[in-house]
């Protein structure tokens, strides 16, 4: 990932998208999606490296590293959901964007059920 590469080609893509918006508005949507895909495929390997670093840094602490799984999954779901919602919003379909966000929030909550159960058990244990 090189930040100058990303900035340069995003500015070029913005001008292309602006040019095409007058003639064929749907292509500017495609360009936005392509920019998203290119940038994320540059950034996500680096995010993976960061996650690897965090995983190795806390590897000796079993309790924390077990809790990290749902967190990274929620991060992935959030990224994918945001891509879809932003694309919908660019196309002017804000209600569909809200539905996708609802689905993403539900998926993240479902993933975090075990953590919530643990917290509830802890509270119940303290109250006993």
């Amino acid at each position, binding site marked *: 990932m090189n930040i100058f590469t990303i900035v340069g080609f995003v500015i070029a893509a913005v001008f292309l998208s602006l*040019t095409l918006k007058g*003639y064929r508005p749907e292509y500017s949507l495609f*360009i936005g999606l392509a920019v998203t895909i290119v940038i994320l*495929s540059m950034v996500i390997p680096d995010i993976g490296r960061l996650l690897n670093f965090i995983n190795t840094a806390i590897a000796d602490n079993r309790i924390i590293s077990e809790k990290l799984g749902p967190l990274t999954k929620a*991060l992935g779901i959030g990224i*994918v959901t945001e891509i879809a919602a932003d694309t919908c919003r660019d196309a002017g379909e804000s209600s569909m964007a809200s539905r996708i966000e609802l689905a993403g929030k539900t998926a993240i909550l479902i993933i975090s059920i075990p953590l919530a159960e643990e917290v509830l058990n802890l509270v119940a244990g303290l109250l006993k």
Partner: protein
Amino acid sequence: MDVDLIFRIAAIGIIVAVLNQVLIRSGREEQAMMTTLAGLIVVLLMIIKEIKYLFDIVKSTFGL
């Protein structure tokens, strides 16, 4: 990841827009519409492959 995906899509968009204008000026509205549709399908096919690639790397990175 190849940056020229964006430029390919923009080029297809410009070509389709020009073809569309030419065909409409020469009074062939149906063919202009078909050209638009064909360009759209071509770009969709290009994008769908890349979306699958993106989802694959997201899945493998975040362990989904």
